[in-house]
């Protein structure tokens, strides 16, 4: 398996991502992330090396944590806007999660139709879950029609968090929000369920890029928000390899934990074993030795 590339782009002192000044920096971070990842110098080329112009792109956000620790609308809307300015139609971009309630609670304003971006949950009338069970390895689930039917390409724009069961929740586990029964897949540290959901046709066939929102990283007692264990990191992790993205995210969490004198996830008996399973399934690289990590700071 060839080395995988992961790009970390940071920008110091981000406190109000919705402000015009910080929005500009965030866009620059997307630009550098996609550019360094794809090797393309032009933004448009970088975007179009990940998506086709005719793609309907689903940006799967993670809003279970409410306003405090969810993918912020300022970030997902900025990404949608940046992608649309670089070759894709606004009307073909959907920012979504499993419920409208969770989206609203995280600060999103719902929008469906009208020619702009769409923002809605699977429980929106007309969306919902497919009627046929997808039975794949140990998984038996109904998939969100957004993921299964509406979109042709998918971005996992997840929050990086510690997770009491999985160890880490990041880009791969974000797709638990695409199935109707995620509560059934938390046994055995969510392993092998995280990689198996990812490996199922509605996800694997469409996932294009992981973008981990690490502006604030919950490095202990996640996935709920605990400010005393949340680090304002001010960065994003980009990778075309979903396993490598999560692996680098895990390393980041371990770094914050060590700095605070907390035991490692392995010492707590909950290292994210799903990553090794994912690597064995051929979904990507889980060993840091096989991952080329590029770090850059945007002023």
């Amino acid at each position: 398996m060839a080395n995988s590339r992961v790009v970390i782009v940071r920008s110091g002192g981000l406190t109000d991502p919705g402000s015009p000044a910080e929005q500009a920096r965030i866009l620059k971070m997307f630009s550098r992330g996609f550019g360094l990842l794809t090797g393309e110098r032009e933004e448009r080329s970088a975007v179009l090396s990940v998506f086709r112009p005719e793609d309907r792109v689903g940006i799967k956000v993670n809003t279970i944590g409410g306003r405090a620790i969810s993918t912020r609308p300022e970030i997902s809307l900025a990404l949608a806007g940046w992608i649309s300015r670089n070759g894709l139609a606004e009307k073909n971009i959907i920012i979504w999660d499993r419920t409208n309630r969770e989206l609203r609670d995280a600060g999103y304003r719902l929008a469906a139709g009208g020619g702009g971006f769409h923002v809605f949950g699977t429980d929106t009338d007309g969306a919902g879950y497919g009627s046929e069970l997808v039975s794949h390895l140990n998984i038996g689930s109904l998939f969100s029609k957004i993921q299964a039917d509406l979109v042709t390409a998918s971005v996992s724009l997840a929050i990086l968090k510690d997770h009491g069961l999985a160890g880490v929740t990041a880009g791969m586990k974000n797709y638990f929000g695409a199935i109707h029964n995620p509560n059934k897949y938390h046994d055995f540290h969510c392993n092998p369920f995280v990689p198996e959901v990812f490996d199922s046709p509605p996800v694997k066939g469409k996932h294009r890029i992981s973008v981990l929102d690490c502006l604030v990283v919950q490095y202990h007692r996640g996935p709920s928000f605990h400010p005393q264990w949340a680090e304002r990191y001010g960065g994003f992790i980009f990778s075309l390899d979903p396993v490598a993205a999560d692996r680098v995210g895990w390393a980041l969490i371990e770094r914050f934990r060590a700095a605070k004198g907390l035991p490692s996830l392995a010492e707590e008996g909950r290292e994210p074993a799903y990553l090794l399973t994912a690597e064995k399934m051929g979904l990507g690289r889980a060993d840091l030795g096989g991952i080329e990590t590029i770090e850059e700071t945007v002023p």
Partner: protein
Amino acid sequence: MNRRDFFRSAAGAGLVLGTGLPSLCSRLSAFGEKGGLSHVEARYYRKLPDREIECELCPRACRLGDKERGYCGVRENQGGTYYTLVYGKACSLNVDPIEKKPFFHFLPGTNALSLATAGCNVNCKFCQNWEISQVRPEQVENVDLPPRIIPAQAEKYGCPSIAYTYTEPVVFFEYMYDTAVEARRLGVRSAVVTGGHIKPEPLKDLIGVVDAIKVDLKAYSQDFYTKYVRGELKTVLETIRSVAKSKVWLEIVYLVIPTLNDSAADIREMARWVKNEAGDRVPLHFSRFQPLYLVKNLPPTPVSTLEMARDTALGEGLRFVYVGNVPGHPGENTYCPNCKKTIIQRTGFTVTGIRLKGGKCEFCGTPVPGIWA
């Protein structure tokens, strides 16, 4: 054949006297108002630091952070307080023959007002009702049906009992418990159909307010429970043992699935355990499997396998052993353990004759255990 087709064909064949699940919405609406989720504090949990909680209802003992839900999908930690989201939120309500549960020694020939909410604390790969049990409450249509009005509805529809069934009633414990308390006040009985995954304390409380419990014993092997149920055999056996020791009427169902739990040795061992730990008077039903949900690669159970299971259990000394889901089979009938005459005759869910007087065989006067009136 999927579940809908199965119910449709079964109903067409006159096998299902109650209403099939998919057609419930209109009937549900007639009972109550359409509702969302409830916000009622759950019982049986403990608060932990940092707004975490640990559920103490079932052996999973889910430990959850703020905004997280348990494995059942119907109980949620909101800011360090644990809530049931399905209190008074019925997703299914039918008037069913009690034989459909199945209870064969509990008010035979009567109907039960049968109630469910979404959710389950296991994930059986062969679930017949997965469309309501393996979903979150937002994913089904719920109707507001508070405990205080259900017993009156039961009376109105001529049901001497309420059955908590279809999904896993343990996950809607508070709703079931309060309904059972109201029902007892009105003289309506309560019958629980459960997989038996419940902790001792809530089980003890439940036993205090209900009249009958049917436990689905899915297999007599932890390996089966791990692979196909995601549950724990030990807990289920403990539940059976506790109910058997109580005054609540107990029946056991064993769904026989070809190649997975149909070995004669396992069945013999299970029957021995039931006899020793629950007693020879406990009715044991061997039900026929139909390929549904995630186990569609196996055929329906051959009738000969069910007969083998029944013969094995009878041979081990159990006195009331039945064959289920094979309408017209003689193994559906109740036979007097003394004179061997047919004392309750059944075809499918229909009771066609009862030859009991005051709980005794009409022919020889032998007492037959059960709740008969």
